[in-house]
């Protein structure tokens, strides 16, 4: 009897343990002034620290309960799929446009168009005033399944150790072209490399093919043609291997590699962010071309502690042979990877709540709050009507994790809202704010274009890009590092191989999408 009892309990326990993992707790019922939203965990943590966000919830009387997702973007979107499969999608979700374009018409996400008209007058006004936005978020029937986040338009900056250049006798103003730059690298290598075998004047992290703008061989798309991979690479790792200038770029990078002017592991693609940061702080590097505010980051994160003379600066864009400024690759106005979609199971009241909250950020009051904060606390209005931050950037951004602060780094996702570029650039330490004022201008940046793809085009393009992009990078890396001899024949064979793998088809699809988006 005892044995039977023990066996029964054991079996029940095993069964219970097994099914425990498969049970899903029901979502808590939420009142009309709250809604749940699935979002990348980094952004949720970020939102929790923002003073202006709390002020927005207070102003609208609406509270958003965030459901934290993973950290990696691709994992976030994979979890959206899993939540759709398991029926555990919260009221709203962070997703990407390619997902809303497919799942929206199938019925997973609510068509927001009629509700925006009814409950979100400011957002409706924004849509009407921005036909490019309307074209991007609406399908052929005028349905809107996702709201896209606006993004600041910025390019990468060429940051450098000003103290290094000074000691090596280089005048930064003399570096006007890529040729000048290469000469400066040589001078620095001679000066610092003789005592330090680990010194390489140009360093960086992860992908090395970030210099295409300097050689005027960025991937692009226009009414005439499409060149290179533009989808997802209009800014980062944008290049067109079919351009003659791309050959020059690889040739120049090979020179840097052969002469020890570029950190070899960076050129080979094995230098991590940590390696790069350590190199820059320890004096093993002088130049880098990276995210616009990284020069300030080094000033705040150990540079001056490692060397009292440590001083970062930012160089202007290079000029071409005719003395014209070479434009850098800029972000798109709309970030298609940060989209808010609403669960189709939401009732009208819930959709109204969600849209009311988002709509606030399209009102004058909401725009001012999200970009500048509260008057008298984080900003003041000048005599000419312009807003000026009074909250100190360094003090606020260096507050410990989890502490409430003023912060206006609008490149991150909080809610879908318009971005004031002036405020975004002004909210930086003087080093970067000054550089932004001078170099984040229209004549310095090529703004990325948002293209509208059909679901079929998007699928085909994504699959081709998954293959061709890595193959292009691998091929160019082998030329730079000398694994493959760089000559006209090998380069031409490489181009043919990439076209055979689908590069030309990618260009065709991008060109079609351009015409569908911007054509007559």
């Amino acid at each position, binding site marked *: 009897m005892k044995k039977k009892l023990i066996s029964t309990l054991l079996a029940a326990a095993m069964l219970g343990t097994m099914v425990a993992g498969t049970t899903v707790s029901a979502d808590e019922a939420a009142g009309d002034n709250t809604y749940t939203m699935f979002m990348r965990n980094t952004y949720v943590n970020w939102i929790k620290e923002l003073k202006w966000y709390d002020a927005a919830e207070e102003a609208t009387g609406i509270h958003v309960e965030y459901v934290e997702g993973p950290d990696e973007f691709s994992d976030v979107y994979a979890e959206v799929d899993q939540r759709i499969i398991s029926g555990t999608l919260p009221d709203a979700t962070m997703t990407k446009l390619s997902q809303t374009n497919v799942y929206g018409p199938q019925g997973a996400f609510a068509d927001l168009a009629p509700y925006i008209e009814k409950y979100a007058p400011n957002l409706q006004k924004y849509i009407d005033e921005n036909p490019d936005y309307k074209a991007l978020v609406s399908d052929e029937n005028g349905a809107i399944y996702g709201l896209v986040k606006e993004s600041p338009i910025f390019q990468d900056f060429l940051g450098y150790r000003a103290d290094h250049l000074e000691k090596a006798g280089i005048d930064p103003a003399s570096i006007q072209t890529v040729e000048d730059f290469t000469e400066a690298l040589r001078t620095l290598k001679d000066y610092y490399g003789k005592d330090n075998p680990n010194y390489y004047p140009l360093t960086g992290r992860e992908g090395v093919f970030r210099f295409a703008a300097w050689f005027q061989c960025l991937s692009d798309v226009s009414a005439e043609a499409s060149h290179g991979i533009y989808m997802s690479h209009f800014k980062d790792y944008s290049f067109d291997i079919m351009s003659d200038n791309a050959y020059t770029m690889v040739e120049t990078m090979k020179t840097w590699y052969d002469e020890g002017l570029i950190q070899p592991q960076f050129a080979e*693609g094995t230098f991590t962010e940590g390696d790069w940061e350590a190199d820059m702080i320890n004096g093993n590097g002088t130049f880098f071309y990276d995210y616009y505010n990284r020069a300030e980051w080094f000033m705040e994160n150990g540079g001056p502690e490692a060397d009292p003379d440590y001083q970062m600066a930012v160089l202007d864009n290079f000029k071409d042979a005719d003395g014209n400024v070479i434009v850098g690759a800029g972000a798109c106005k709309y970030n298609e990877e940060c989209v808010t979609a609403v669960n189709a199971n939401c009732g009208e009241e819930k959709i109204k709540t969600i849209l009311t909250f988002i709509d606030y950020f399209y009102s004058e009051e909401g725009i001012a709050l999200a970009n500048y904060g509260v008057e008298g606390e984080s900003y003041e209005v000048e005599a000419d009507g312009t807003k000026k931050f009074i909250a100190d950037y360094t003090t606020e951004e260096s507050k410990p994790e989890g502490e409430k602060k003023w912060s206006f780094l609008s490149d991150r996702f909080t809610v879908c809202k318009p971005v004031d570029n002036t405020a975004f650039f002004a909210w930086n330490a003087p080093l970067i704010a000054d550089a932004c004022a001078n170099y984040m201008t229209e004549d310095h940046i090529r703004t990325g274009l948002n293209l509208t793809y059909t679901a079929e085009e998007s699928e085909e393009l994504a699959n081709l*890009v998954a293959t061709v992009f890595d193959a292009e990078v691998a091929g160019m890396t082998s030329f730079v590092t000398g694994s493959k001899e760089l000559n006209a024949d090998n380069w031409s064979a490489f181009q043919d191989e990439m076209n055979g793998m689908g590069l030309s088809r990618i260009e065709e699809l991008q060109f079609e999408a351009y015409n569908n988006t911007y054509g007559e």
Partner: protein
Amino acid sequence: MAGKRKAAVVSAANKKSLPQRIKKDLKRNWILYLLLLPGILSLILFKIGPVGGMVIAFEKFSAFQGVFHSKWVGLDNFARIFKDPYIPKVVGNTIILAVLSIVVVFPIPIIFSLFLNEVKQKWIKSTVQSLSFLPYFISAAVMVSILYTLLSPSSGLVNNIIRWFGGKSVNFMAKPGWFRPEYVLLEVWQTLGYSAIIYIAAINNIDQELYEAAEVDGANRWDKIFRITLPCISTSIIVMLIISVGNIFTVNLDRILLMYNPSVYDTADVIQTYVYRIAFESKGFPDYSYGTAVNLLKSVIAFALVTAVNKLADKFAETRLF
């Protein structure tokens, strides 16, 4: 005769129908069946059930429409595989890695077990066996980090030795030619002790009288290894070989992703990394169906190989797995 017929009639009358016998058996052994239930459910839910999900290889799968309502496209995804110009490259890389794994990784635990068996001191034997088993529990991330540290061009032990001898640092992790040896090295390091357990267990089951008789006949250590130990564990070796062939297309994805960089794409891009990029790292809408089709085809080929090796083993070594 009449008696026999009578017994047959009585036996037929006593023999109960199948449902009745099942019912009786269930009643008698219900506790055992109850204990079996979680295992069976787990097998159905997590092993057999998901195989049904592979049907998405024949569909244009949408997570929202699900397996039952997604559009049926028949063999379109499979046709795409044969048209995909990149497939031959990743299949080639996968096969080379798999062949290296079988040719290099498979025999090493056998050799290790044979040599370990020759160690007479028990404590040394058990210590070496335990130490060889430990790396099995180290994650791929830690393994690859250790490799990166050892091979670092600026501070790694290997490059320090190269420089000490007057050589020039080599970034081994960025050399396409070094990717496969590095992968195989990690595979050996990680699985050596675990795989050896099976052979050591088989060796321990060999009748000691065979060795004693061989010694009487004047056999030396090598004779005993090649004429007694190896033939006696050949069944285990063949079973392990068949299992290894079944896993021929299964590479360690975590390890490869961690060792992946643009310099080694030429040799490191394999079927799994390609499927991962398309299905899970997609820049557009993820193509789960195509990824599943590639994996399904891979499984079918692996199954055919296992069947062929099983037949060959039966024919030449009179041993088979199924």
